[in-house]
Protein backbone atom coordinates (compact mmCIF):
# COMPACT_ATOMS: atom_id res chain seq x y z
CA UNK A 1 0.00 0.00 0.00
CA UNK A 2 1.51 3.30 -1.09
CA UNK A 3 -0.81 5.72 0.71
CA UNK A 4 -3.02 5.26 3.72
CA UNK A 5 -5.20 7.89 5.35
CA UNK A 6 -6.46 6.89 8.81
CA UNK A 7 -9.39 8.84 10.20
CA UNK A 8 -8.05 12.16 8.87
CA UNK A 9 -9.96 15.32 9.80
CA UNK A 10 -9.47 18.99 9.10
CA UNK A 11 -11.56 21.84 10.35
CA UNK A 12 -11.50 25.52 9.32
CA UNK A 13 -13.20 27.38 12.15
CA UNK A 14 -16.72 25.96 12.30
CA UNK A 15 -16.46 24.15 8.97
CA UNK A 16 -15.49 20.48 8.88
CA UNK A 17 -13.71 20.40 5.53
CA UNK A 18 -12.51 16.81 5.93
CA UNK A 19 -14.16 14.53 8.46
CA UNK A 20 -12.68 11.19 9.51
CA UNK A 21 -11.51 10.13 6.06
CA UNK A 22 -10.09 6.63 5.65
CA UNK A 23 -8.48 6.01 2.30
CA UNK A 24 -6.01 3.48 0.95
CA UNK A 25 -4.26 3.52 -2.40
CA UNK A 26 -2.28 0.60 -3.79
CA UNK A 27 0.94 1.14 -5.69
CA UNK A 28 0.32 1.64 -9.42
CA UNK A 29 -3.38 2.42 -8.98
CA UNK A 30 -5.12 5.31 -10.72
CA UNK A 31 -7.68 6.57 -8.24
CA UNK A 32 -10.27 9.17 -9.18
CA UNK A 33 -11.43 11.49 -6.41
CA UNK A 34 -14.84 12.95 -7.17
CA UNK A 35 -17.45 14.95 -5.35
CA UNK A 36 -19.49 18.14 -5.66
CA UNK A 37 -17.87 21.57 -5.34
CA UNK A 38 -16.77 22.25 -1.77
CA UNK A 39 -16.80 18.55 -0.87
CA UNK A 40 -13.24 18.70 0.47
CA UNK A 41 -11.32 17.10 -2.41
CA UNK A 42 -8.64 19.77 -2.72
CA UNK A 43 -8.38 20.04 1.07
CA UNK A 44 -7.68 16.31 1.14
CA UNK A 45 -4.99 16.82 -1.45
CA UNK A 46 -3.52 19.68 0.56
CA UNK A 47 -3.43 17.44 3.63
CA UNK A 48 -1.61 14.69 1.75
CA UNK A 49 0.90 17.12 0.21
CA UNK A 50 1.64 18.71 3.59
CA UNK A 51 0.20 22.14 2.74
CA UNK A 52 -2.29 21.65 5.61
CA UNK A 53 -1.71 19.70 8.79
CA UNK A 54 -4.61 17.43 9.82
CA UNK A 55 -6.34 18.15 13.13
CA UNK A 56 -6.52 14.43 13.78
CA UNK A 57 -5.68 11.15 12.08
CA UNK A 58 -2.59 9.83 10.37
CA UNK A 59 -1.24 9.84 6.83
CA UNK A 60 1.12 6.99 5.97
CA UNK A 61 3.17 6.95 2.78
CA UNK A 62 4.95 3.68 1.99
CA UNK A 63 4.46 2.79 5.67
CA UNK A 64 6.11 6.01 6.89
CA UNK A 65 4.03 8.43 8.93
CA UNK A 66 4.14 11.75 7.06
CA UNK A 67 1.45 13.47 9.15
CA UNK A 68 2.40 17.09 9.79
CA UNK A 69 5.53 16.96 7.67
CA UNK A 70 6.51 20.09 5.75
CA UNK A 71 5.51 20.10 2.05
CA UNK A 72 9.15 19.94 0.92
CA UNK A 73 9.70 16.83 3.07
CA UNK A 74 6.54 15.21 1.69
CA UNK A 75 7.80 15.92 -1.83
CA UNK A 76 11.15 14.32 -1.04
CA UNK A 77 9.33 11.22 0.21
CA UNK A 78 7.92 10.97 -3.32
CA UNK A 79 4.60 12.83 -3.48
CA UNK A 80 4.16 15.57 -6.03
CA UNK A 81 1.15 17.61 -7.10
CA UNK A 82 -0.41 19.91 -9.66
CA UNK A 83 -2.85 22.74 -8.94
CA UNK A 84 -6.48 23.37 -9.81
CA UNK A 85 -5.51 26.82 -11.09
CA UNK A 86 -2.04 26.48 -12.65
CA UNK A 87 0.67 28.02 -10.53
CA UNK A 88 3.83 28.20 -12.61
CA UNK A 89 6.74 30.47 -11.73
CA UNK A 90 5.50 33.20 -14.08
CA UNK A 91 8.74 35.05 -14.76
CA UNK A 92 10.72 31.89 -15.44
CA UNK A 93 11.08 30.10 -18.73
CA UNK A 94 9.38 26.72 -19.13
CA UNK A 95 12.76 25.03 -18.88
CA UNK A 96 13.62 26.70 -15.57
CA UNK A 97 10.19 25.93 -14.16
CA UNK A 98 10.87 22.24 -14.66
CA UNK A 99 14.51 22.59 -13.60
CA UNK A 100 13.29 23.76 -10.17
CA UNK A 101 11.47 20.43 -9.86
CA UNK A 102 14.56 18.51 -10.96
CA UNK A 103 16.83 20.32 -8.50
CA UNK A 104 14.53 20.33 -5.50
CA UNK A 105 12.48 17.15 -5.75
CA UNK A 106 14.85 14.52 -4.55
CA UNK A 107 17.89 15.81 -2.74
CA UNK A 108 20.43 16.30 -5.48
CA UNK A 109 23.07 18.53 -3.88
CA UNK A 110 25.69 17.82 -6.49
CA UNK A 111 23.60 18.32 -9.62
CA UNK A 112 24.66 21.43 -11.51
CA UNK A 113 22.14 23.82 -12.99
CA UNK A 114 23.09 22.89 -16.55
CA UNK A 115 22.61 19.17 -15.80
CA UNK A 116 19.25 19.95 -14.23
CA UNK A 117 18.28 21.86 -17.35
CA UNK A 118 19.20 18.90 -19.54
CA UNK A 119 17.06 16.69 -17.36
CA UNK A 120 14.26 19.26 -17.47
CA UNK A 121 14.39 19.32 -21.26
CA UNK A 122 13.60 15.60 -21.26
CA UNK A 123 10.44 16.19 -19.23
CA UNK A 124 9.45 19.11 -21.45
CA UNK A 125 9.86 16.95 -24.51
CA UNK A 126 7.70 14.29 -22.89
CA UNK A 127 4.81 16.72 -22.41
CA UNK A 128 5.33 18.27 -25.84
CA UNK A 129 6.69 21.61 -24.67
CA UNK A 130 10.29 21.35 -25.78
CA UNK A 131 9.68 23.94 -28.48
CA UNK A 132 8.50 26.35 -25.79
CA UNK A 133 11.45 25.78 -23.46
CA UNK A 134 12.63 29.39 -23.60
CA UNK A 135 9.13 30.90 -23.34
CA UNK A 136 8.23 32.60 -20.09
CA UNK A 137 5.47 30.75 -18.23
CA UNK A 138 3.43 33.97 -18.07
CA UNK A 139 3.19 33.91 -21.86
CA UNK A 140 1.84 30.34 -22.11
CA UNK A 141 -1.70 29.16 -22.78
CA UNK A 142 -3.81 27.29 -20.20
CA UNK A 143 -3.19 23.90 -21.81
CA UNK A 144 0.55 24.58 -21.98
CA UNK A 145 0.54 25.61 -18.34
CA UNK A 146 -1.24 22.42 -17.32
CA UNK A 147 1.29 20.37 -19.30
CA UNK A 148 4.10 22.39 -17.74
CA UNK A 149 2.75 21.66 -14.25
CA UNK A 150 2.67 17.94 -15.03
CA UNK A 151 6.25 18.08 -16.32
CA UNK A 152 7.37 20.01 -13.24
CA UNK A 153 5.64 17.59 -10.90
CA UNK A 154 7.17 14.60 -12.71
CA UNK A 155 10.60 16.20 -12.54
CA UNK A 156 10.58 15.67 -8.78
CA UNK A 157 10.47 11.89 -9.56
CA UNK A 158 7.38 11.10 -7.51
CA UNK A 159 5.89 7.70 -6.72
CA UNK A 160 2.51 9.31 -6.11
CA UNK A 161 1.20 12.11 -8.29
CA UNK A 162 -1.70 14.23 -7.05
CA UNK A 163 -3.51 15.70 -10.04
CA UNK A 164 -6.04 18.43 -9.30
CA UNK A 165 -8.61 19.05 -12.05
CA UNK A 166 -6.14 18.99 -14.88
CA UNK A 167 -8.93 19.21 -17.46
CA UNK A 168 -10.63 22.30 -16.06
CA UNK A 169 -10.99 25.09 -18.61
CA UNK A 170 -9.71 23.03 -21.54
CA UNK A 171 -11.59 22.65 -24.81
CA UNK A 172 -12.48 19.21 -26.19
CA UNK A 173 -9.37 18.89 -28.35
CA UNK A 174 -7.16 19.88 -25.43
CA UNK A 175 -8.99 17.45 -23.13
CA UNK A 176 -8.18 14.61 -25.54
CA UNK A 177 -4.55 15.73 -25.66
CA UNK A 178 -4.43 15.91 -21.86
CA UNK A 179 -5.87 12.38 -21.53
CA UNK A 180 -3.23 11.09 -23.96
CA UNK A 181 -0.57 12.88 -21.95
CA UNK A 182 -1.67 11.37 -18.64
CA UNK A 183 -1.80 7.91 -20.20
CA UNK A 184 1.72 8.45 -21.50
CA UNK A 185 2.86 9.48 -18.02
CA UNK A 186 1.32 6.34 -16.52
CA UNK A 187 2.93 4.12 -19.16
CA UNK A 188 6.37 5.68 -18.98
CA UNK A 189 6.75 6.49 -15.30
CA UNK A 190 4.47 3.90 -13.64
CA UNK A 191 3.41 6.44 -11.04
CA UNK A 192 0.41 6.03 -8.77
CA UNK A 193 -2.13 8.77 -9.41
CA UNK A 194 -4.76 10.34 -7.20
CA UNK A 195 -6.82 12.37 -9.64
CA UNK A 196 -9.48 14.95 -8.83
CA UNK A 197 -11.77 15.43 -11.79
CA UNK A 198 -15.27 16.68 -12.54
CA UNK A 199 -15.60 15.22 -16.03
CA UNK A 200 -17.15 11.82 -15.27
CA UNK A 201 -16.42 10.40 -18.73
CA UNK A 202 -12.70 10.78 -18.14
CA UNK A 203 -12.92 9.34 -14.65
CA UNK A 204 -14.88 6.35 -16.00
CA UNK A 205 -12.34 5.68 -18.72
CA UNK A 206 -9.03 6.49 -17.11
CA UNK A 207 -9.24 5.38 -13.48
CA UNK A 208 -9.07 1.99 -11.79
CA UNK A 209 -11.12 3.03 -8.82
CA UNK A 210 -13.23 5.99 -7.78
CA UNK A 211 -13.56 7.51 -4.32
CA UNK A 212 -16.50 9.83 -3.72
CA UNK A 213 -16.28 12.63 -1.17
CA UNK A 214 -19.25 14.61 0.10
CA UNK A 215 -19.28 17.15 2.95
CA UNK A 216 -15.73 16.09 3.82
CA UNK A 217 -16.61 12.41 4.19
CA UNK A 218 -15.98 9.42 1.94
CA UNK A 219 -19.42 8.23 0.92
CA UNK A 220 -18.42 5.59 -1.57
CA UNK A 221 -15.55 3.82 -3.21
CA UNK A 222 -15.25 1.17 -5.88
CA UNK A 223 -15.06 0.47 -9.59
CA UNK A 224 -16.14 3.47 -11.68
CA UNK A 225 -19.14 1.65 -13.22
CA UNK A 226 -20.39 0.57 -9.77
CA UNK A 227 -19.92 3.97 -8.22
CA UNK A 228 -21.92 5.85 -10.88
CA UNK A 229 -24.90 3.58 -10.39
CA UNK A 230 -24.90 3.96 -6.61
CA UNK A 231 -28.09 5.95 -5.67
CA UNK A 232 -26.32 7.54 -2.70
CA UNK A 233 -23.71 9.03 -5.01
CA UNK A 234 -26.25 10.12 -7.61
CA UNK A 235 -28.10 11.89 -4.82
CA UNK A 236 -24.95 13.66 -3.70
CA UNK A 237 -24.29 14.88 -7.20
CA UNK A 238 -27.76 15.48 -8.65
CA UNK A 239 -30.13 15.73 -5.67
CA UNK A 240 -32.70 13.54 -3.96
CA UNK A 241 -35.42 13.80 -6.64
CA UNK A 242 -33.32 12.41 -9.45
CA UNK A 243 -31.82 9.67 -7.29
Amino acid at each position, binding site marked *: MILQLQNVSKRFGGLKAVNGVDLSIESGEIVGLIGPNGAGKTTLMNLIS*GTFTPDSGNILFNGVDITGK*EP*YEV*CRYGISRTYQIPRP*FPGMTALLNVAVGVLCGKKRPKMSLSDAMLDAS*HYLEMVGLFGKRNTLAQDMSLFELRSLELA*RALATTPSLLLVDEVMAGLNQVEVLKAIRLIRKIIDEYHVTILWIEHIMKIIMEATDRVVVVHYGEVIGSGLPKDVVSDPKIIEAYLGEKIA
Partner: protein
Amino acid sequence: MVKIEHKRALLVIRIGDKKFEWPIETRYWRNPLLGIAGLALLPLLFVSKPNILALITTANIYAAIAIPLSWQITGIGRLNFGPQFFVGLGGYTAGLLSSIYLWGPWATLPVVILMGLGFGFMLSPLTSLAKGLYFSLITLILPLIFLEVTYYFSIFQGETGIYGISPLVSVQSMTLELVIATYFSLILMVLFLYIIHKVMTSRVGVYTAAINDDEEVANNLGLNIKAWKVACFVITSVMITVVGWLAAHFYGTFAGVTFLPLSFMLKILLVVMIGGRGSVYGPIYGAYFVVLLEEALTVLGTVHYIVFPFILLILLFTLPEGLYGIYRKHRYREYYPTIRVRKR
Protein backbone atom coordinates in the same frame (compact mmCIF):
# COMPACT_ATOMS: atom_id res chain seq x y z
CA MET B 1 31.67 57.42 -42.16
CA VAL B 2 30.74 55.99 -38.77
CA LYS B 3 27.21 54.77 -38.22
CA ILE B 4 25.92 53.24 -35.00
CA GLU B 5 22.77 51.13 -34.90
CA HIS B 6 21.15 49.77 -31.77
CA LYS B 7 19.56 46.37 -32.22
CA ARG B 8 18.22 44.11 -29.47
CA ALA B 9 21.15 43.34 -27.16
CA LEU B 10 23.55 44.35 -29.94
CA LEU B 11 25.34 47.51 -30.95
CA VAL B 12 26.21 47.56 -34.63
CA ILE B 13 29.00 49.94 -35.59
CA ARG B 14 29.63 50.54 -39.28
CA ILE B 15 32.85 52.28 -40.26
CA GLY B 16 32.81 52.66 -44.01
CA ASP B 17 32.32 49.17 -45.40
CA LYS B 18 33.35 47.42 -42.20
CA LYS B 19 30.78 46.25 -39.72
CA PHE B 20 31.47 45.59 -36.02
CA GLU B 21 28.98 44.01 -33.69
CA TRP B 22 29.15 44.44 -29.93
CA PRO B 23 26.81 42.54 -27.59
CA ILE B 24 25.60 44.99 -24.98
CA GLU B 25 24.40 42.27 -22.62
CA THR B 26 26.32 42.25 -19.35
CA ARG B 27 26.52 38.50 -19.49
CA TYR B 28 28.87 39.01 -22.39
CA TRP B 29 32.01 38.76 -20.24
CA ARG B 30 33.86 41.72 -21.76
CA ASN B 31 31.21 44.27 -20.83
CA PRO B 32 31.32 43.96 -17.03
CA LEU B 33 35.10 43.95 -17.15
CA LEU B 34 35.10 47.13 -19.24
CA GLY B 35 32.61 48.71 -16.86
CA ILE B 36 34.71 47.84 -13.82
CA ALA B 37 37.86 49.07 -15.58
CA GLY B 38 36.04 52.35 -16.27
CA LEU B 39 35.07 52.68 -12.61
CA ALA B 40 38.63 51.85 -11.57
CA LEU B 41 39.93 54.70 -13.74
CA LEU B 42 37.68 57.29 -12.14
CA PRO B 43 39.72 57.85 -8.92
CA LEU B 44 42.88 58.33 -10.99
CA LEU B 45 41.14 60.92 -13.15
CA PHE B 46 40.05 62.90 -10.11
CA VAL B 47 43.09 62.49 -7.86
CA SER B 48 43.25 66.20 -7.11
CA LYS B 49 39.52 66.53 -6.37
CA PRO B 50 38.76 65.07 -2.94
CA ASN B 51 35.06 65.98 -3.14
CA ILE B 52 34.64 63.87 -6.30
CA LEU B 53 36.58 61.01 -4.73
CA ALA B 54 34.20 61.19 -1.78
CA LEU B 55 31.26 61.08 -4.21
CA ILE B 56 32.68 58.01 -5.95
CA THR B 57 33.13 56.30 -2.58
CA THR B 58 29.58 57.19 -1.56
CA ALA B 59 28.26 55.71 -4.82
CA ASN B 60 30.34 52.55 -4.25
CA ILE B 61 29.01 52.30 -0.69
CA TYR B 62 25.40 52.70 -1.90
CA ALA B 63 25.96 50.05 -4.57
CA ALA B 64 27.66 47.71 -2.07
CA ILE B 65 24.55 47.90 0.11
CA ALA B 66 22.10 47.71 -2.79
CA ILE B 67 23.68 44.69 -4.56
CA PRO B 68 23.11 42.21 -1.70
CA LEU B 69 19.82 43.92 -0.83
CA SER B 70 18.59 43.41 -4.39
CA TRP B 71 19.26 39.68 -4.10
CA GLN B 72 17.77 39.58 -0.60
CA ILE B 73 14.49 41.05 -1.87
CA THR B 74 14.15 38.23 -4.41
CA GLY B 75 15.62 35.56 -2.13
CA ILE B 76 13.23 36.08 0.75
CA GLY B 77 10.36 37.34 -1.38
CA ARG B 78 9.88 40.32 0.90
CA LEU B 79 10.85 43.98 0.82
CA ASN B 80 13.35 44.86 3.53
CA PHE B 81 12.86 48.47 4.54
CA GLY B 82 15.67 48.48 7.08
CA PRO B 83 18.96 47.43 5.50
CA GLN B 84 20.60 50.38 7.20
CA PHE B 85 20.14 48.61 10.55
CA PHE B 86 23.02 46.38 9.54
CA VAL B 87 25.04 49.33 8.22
CA GLY B 88 24.64 50.88 11.68
CA LEU B 89 25.57 47.60 13.35
CA GLY B 90 28.78 47.31 11.35
CA GLY B 91 29.64 50.99 11.71
CA TYR B 92 29.10 51.18 15.46
CA THR B 93 30.87 47.87 16.13
CA ALA B 94 33.91 49.02 14.16
CA GLY B 95 33.71 52.52 15.63
CA LEU B 96 33.44 51.44 19.26
CA LEU B 97 36.21 48.86 19.00
CA SER B 98 38.46 51.31 17.21
CA SER B 99 37.83 54.35 19.42
CA ILE B 100 37.80 52.55 22.78
CA TYR B 101 40.30 49.73 22.25
CA LEU B 102 42.23 51.40 19.41
CA TRP B 103 41.70 48.40 17.13
CA GLY B 104 42.70 48.77 13.50
CA PRO B 105 40.31 48.05 10.61
CA TRP B 106 41.51 44.49 10.07
CA ALA B 107 41.06 43.67 13.74
CA THR B 108 37.52 45.04 13.82
CA LEU B 109 36.45 43.26 10.61
CA PRO B 110 36.06 39.71 12.08
CA VAL B 111 34.04 41.09 15.00
CA VAL B 112 31.85 43.04 12.57
CA ILE B 113 31.24 39.87 10.54
CA LEU B 114 30.38 37.96 13.72
CA MET B 115 27.95 40.69 14.76
CA GLY B 116 26.33 40.58 11.31
CA LEU B 117 26.02 36.80 11.57
CA GLY B 118 24.59 36.96 15.08
CA PHE B 119 21.98 39.62 14.39
CA GLY B 120 21.27 38.12 10.96
CA PHE B 121 20.42 34.78 12.56
CA MET B 122 18.49 36.44 15.35
CA LEU B 123 16.27 38.36 12.95
CA SER B 124 16.09 35.67 10.25
CA PRO B 125 12.93 33.95 11.63
CA LEU B 126 11.10 37.11 10.53
CA THR B 127 11.55 36.01 6.91
CA SER B 128 9.07 33.20 7.55
CA LEU B 129 7.00 34.53 10.44
CA ALA B 130 6.28 38.03 9.11
CA LYS B 131 4.67 38.17 5.72
CA GLY B 132 4.49 40.98 3.18
CA LEU B 133 3.68 44.31 4.74
CA TYR B 134 4.40 43.10 8.29
CA PHE B 135 7.97 42.20 7.37
CA SER B 136 8.43 45.60 5.73
CA LEU B 137 7.00 47.38 8.78
CA ILE B 138 9.15 45.48 11.26
CA THR B 139 12.31 46.06 9.25
CA LEU B 140 11.33 49.72 8.89
CA ILE B 141 11.11 50.13 12.66
CA LEU B 142 14.33 48.28 13.56
CA PRO B 143 16.81 50.98 12.45
CA LEU B 144 14.65 53.66 14.06
CA ILE B 145 14.81 51.81 17.39
CA PHE B 146 18.57 51.50 16.89
CA LEU B 147 18.74 55.27 16.29
CA GLU B 148 16.89 55.93 19.55
CA VAL B 149 19.29 53.57 21.34
CA THR B 150 22.24 55.60 20.04
CA TYR B 151 20.68 58.72 21.57
CA TYR B 152 19.91 57.03 24.86
CA PHE B 153 23.24 55.37 25.64
CA SER B 154 26.16 57.76 25.94
CA ILE B 155 28.61 55.18 24.59
CA PHE B 156 27.22 55.86 21.09
CA GLN B 157 27.72 59.62 21.61
CA GLY B 158 24.33 60.61 20.19
CA GLU B 159 24.20 62.95 17.22
CA THR B 160 27.93 63.66 17.35
CA GLY B 161 28.68 60.02 16.75
CA ILE B 162 31.86 58.11 17.33
CA TYR B 163 34.98 59.83 16.08
CA GLY B 164 38.67 59.02 15.98
CA ILE B 165 38.09 55.73 14.19
CA SER B 166 41.33 54.41 12.70
CA PRO B 167 41.50 54.92 8.93
CA LEU B 168 41.58 52.09 6.41
CA VAL B 169 45.14 52.96 5.47
CA SER B 170 47.67 55.30 7.02
CA VAL B 171 50.07 57.05 4.65
CA GLN B 172 51.80 60.43 4.74
CA SER B 173 49.81 61.95 1.89
CA MET B 174 46.15 62.74 2.58
CA THR B 175 45.35 62.58 -1.14
CA LEU B 176 46.90 59.15 -1.52
CA GLU B 177 45.03 57.97 1.57
CA LEU B 178 41.76 59.13 0.03
CA VAL B 179 42.51 57.48 -3.33
CA ILE B 180 43.39 54.17 -1.65
CA ALA B 181 40.24 54.33 0.48
CA THR B 182 38.19 55.00 -2.67
CA TYR B 183 39.70 51.90 -4.24
CA PHE B 184 38.81 49.94 -1.10
CA SER B 185 35.17 50.87 -1.60
CA LEU B 186 35.40 49.87 -5.27
CA ILE B 187 37.02 46.53 -4.41
CA LEU B 188 34.33 45.79 -1.84
CA MET B 189 31.59 46.66 -4.31
CA VAL B 190 33.14 44.51 -7.08
CA LEU B 191 33.64 41.65 -4.62
CA PHE B 192 29.95 41.78 -3.68
CA LEU B 193 29.03 42.01 -7.34
CA TYR B 194 31.08 38.90 -8.10
CA ILE B 195 29.62 36.92 -5.19
CA ILE B 196 26.02 37.83 -5.97
CA HIS B 197 26.51 37.26 -9.71
CA LYS B 198 27.93 33.78 -9.02
CA VAL B 199 25.08 32.98 -6.65
CA MET B 200 22.38 34.25 -8.98
CA THR B 201 23.60 32.28 -11.96
CA SER B 202 23.89 29.08 -9.94
CA ARG B 203 21.19 26.69 -8.73
CA VAL B 204 20.84 28.90 -5.65
CA GLY B 205 19.78 31.75 -7.93
CA VAL B 206 17.03 29.54 -9.32
CA TYR B 207 15.91 28.61 -5.80
CA THR B 208 15.64 32.25 -4.77
CA ALA B 209 13.86 33.14 -8.00
CA ALA B 210 11.36 30.35 -7.29
CA ILE B 211 10.81 31.64 -3.74
CA ASN B 212 10.28 35.13 -5.14
CA ASP B 213 7.71 33.90 -7.67
CA ASP B 214 5.68 31.53 -5.46
CA GLU B 215 7.13 30.23 -2.23
CA GLU B 216 4.27 27.81 -1.55
CA VAL B 217 4.76 26.07 -4.89
CA ALA B 218 8.54 26.04 -4.38
CA ASN B 219 7.97 24.38 -1.01
CA ASN B 220 5.69 21.78 -2.59
CA LEU B 221 8.40 21.03 -5.15
CA GLY B 222 10.80 19.99 -2.41
CA LEU B 223 12.56 23.26 -1.65
CA ASN B 224 13.17 23.94 2.02
CA ILE B 225 12.15 27.57 1.71
CA LYS B 226 12.61 28.43 5.38
CA ALA B 227 16.25 27.33 5.32
CA TRP B 228 17.00 29.12 2.05
CA LYS B 229 15.33 32.31 3.20
CA VAL B 230 17.37 32.27 6.41
CA ALA B 231 20.56 31.61 4.43
CA CYS B 232 19.81 34.42 2.00
CA PHE B 233 18.92 36.88 4.77
CA VAL B 234 21.97 36.07 6.90
CA ILE B 235 24.48 36.19 4.03
CA THR B 236 23.19 39.49 2.68
CA SER B 237 22.94 40.97 6.18
CA VAL B 238 26.58 40.15 6.84
CA MET B 239 27.53 41.79 3.54
CA ILE B 240 25.63 44.96 4.45
CA THR B 241 27.22 44.95 7.92
CA VAL B 242 30.65 44.92 6.28
CA VAL B 243 29.66 48.06 4.34
CA GLY B 244 29.03 49.74 7.71
CA TRP B 245 32.53 48.71 8.74
CA LEU B 246 33.95 50.29 5.57
CA ALA B 247 31.98 53.50 6.07
CA ALA B 248 33.21 53.85 9.67
CA HIS B 249 36.87 53.36 8.78
CA PHE B 250 36.61 55.45 5.59
CA TYR B 251 35.04 58.52 7.16
CA GLY B 252 36.87 58.15 10.51
CA THR B 253 33.62 58.96 12.24
CA PHE B 254 30.29 57.18 12.47
CA ALA B 255 26.97 58.66 13.54
CA GLY B 256 23.65 56.89 13.48
CA VAL B 257 21.98 60.14 12.49
CA THR B 258 23.65 59.83 9.05
CA PHE B 259 23.03 56.17 8.33
CA LEU B 260 19.99 55.10 10.33
CA PRO B 261 17.20 57.55 9.43
CA LEU B 262 14.51 56.90 6.83
CA SER B 263 16.11 59.28 4.34
CA PHE B 264 19.17 57.03 4.00
CA MET B 265 17.01 53.93 3.60
CA LEU B 266 14.95 55.67 0.90
CA LYS B 267 18.09 56.43 -1.06
CA ILE B 268 19.19 52.79 -0.91
CA LEU B 269 15.77 51.51 -1.94
CA LEU B 270 15.70 54.00 -4.80
CA VAL B 271 19.14 52.78 -5.86
CA VAL B 272 17.72 49.25 -5.99
CA MET B 273 14.50 50.24 -7.74
CA ILE B 274 16.02 52.68 -10.21
CA GLY B 275 18.84 50.25 -10.94
CA GLY B 276 16.26 47.52 -11.51
CA ARG B 277 15.02 45.16 -8.83
CA GLY B 278 16.40 41.66 -9.08
CA SER B 279 19.28 42.62 -11.35
CA VAL B 280 22.92 42.26 -10.34
CA TYR B 281 24.41 45.21 -12.19
CA GLY B 282 21.43 47.53 -11.82
CA PRO B 283 22.39 48.83 -8.35
CA ILE B 284 25.68 50.19 -9.72
CA TYR B 285 23.84 52.24 -12.34
CA GLY B 286 21.33 53.26 -9.67
CA ALA B 287 23.98 54.22 -7.10
CA TYR B 288 26.04 56.40 -9.44
CA PHE B 289 22.90 57.96 -10.85
CA VAL B 290 21.42 58.82 -7.45
CA VAL B 291 24.70 60.21 -6.09
CA LEU B 292 25.43 62.29 -9.19
CA LEU B 293 21.87 63.57 -9.39
CA GLU B 294 21.90 64.60 -5.74
CA GLU B 295 25.21 66.39 -6.20
CA ALA B 296 24.11 68.11 -9.42
CA LEU B 297 20.96 69.39 -7.77
CA THR B 298 22.81 71.06 -4.91
CA VAL B 299 23.28 74.10 -7.22
CA LEU B 300 19.58 74.73 -6.67
CA GLY B 301 20.23 75.37 -2.99
CA THR B 302 17.77 74.10 -0.40
CA VAL B 303 15.10 73.53 -3.07
CA HIS B 304 17.02 70.42 -4.09
CA TYR B 305 15.60 68.60 -1.04
CA ILE B 306 12.23 68.78 -2.80
CA VAL B 307 13.39 68.44 -6.41
CA PHE B 308 15.62 65.39 -5.76
CA PRO B 309 12.95 62.98 -4.45
CA PHE B 310 10.49 64.38 -7.00
CA ILE B 311 12.76 63.46 -9.93
CA LEU B 312 13.39 60.04 -8.41
CA LEU B 313 9.66 59.46 -8.06
CA ILE B 314 9.10 60.33 -11.72
CA LEU B 315 11.87 57.93 -12.70
CA LEU B 316 10.35 55.17 -10.59
CA PHE B 317 7.08 55.55 -12.48
CA THR B 318 8.57 55.95 -15.93
CA LEU B 319 11.20 53.21 -15.57
CA PRO B 320 9.51 50.35 -13.72
CA GLU B 321 12.29 47.96 -14.80
CA GLY B 322 14.94 50.46 -13.71
CA LEU B 323 17.70 52.16 -15.65
CA TYR B 324 19.23 48.81 -16.41
CA GLY B 325 15.89 47.66 -17.77
CA ILE B 326 16.26 50.08 -20.69
CA TYR B 327 18.57 47.47 -22.17
CA ARG B 328 17.00 44.40 -20.74
CA LYS B 329 13.33 45.26 -21.27
CA HIS B 330 11.17 42.35 -20.10
CA ARG B 331 12.79 39.61 -22.12
CA TYR B 332 14.15 37.85 -19.06
CA ARG B 333 15.51 38.67 -15.63
CA GLU B 334 19.12 38.63 -14.58
CA TYR B 335 18.73 35.79 -12.14
CA TYR B 336 17.32 33.47 -14.78
CA PRO B 337 20.28 32.01 -16.56
CA THR B 338 19.60 31.06 -20.14
CA ILE B 339 21.39 27.89 -21.03
CA ARG B 340 20.69 26.63 -24.49
CA VAL B 341 19.71 22.97 -24.41
CA ARG B 342 19.84 20.71 -27.40
CA LYS B 343 17.35 17.96 -28.03
CA ARG B 344 18.56 14.57 -26.83
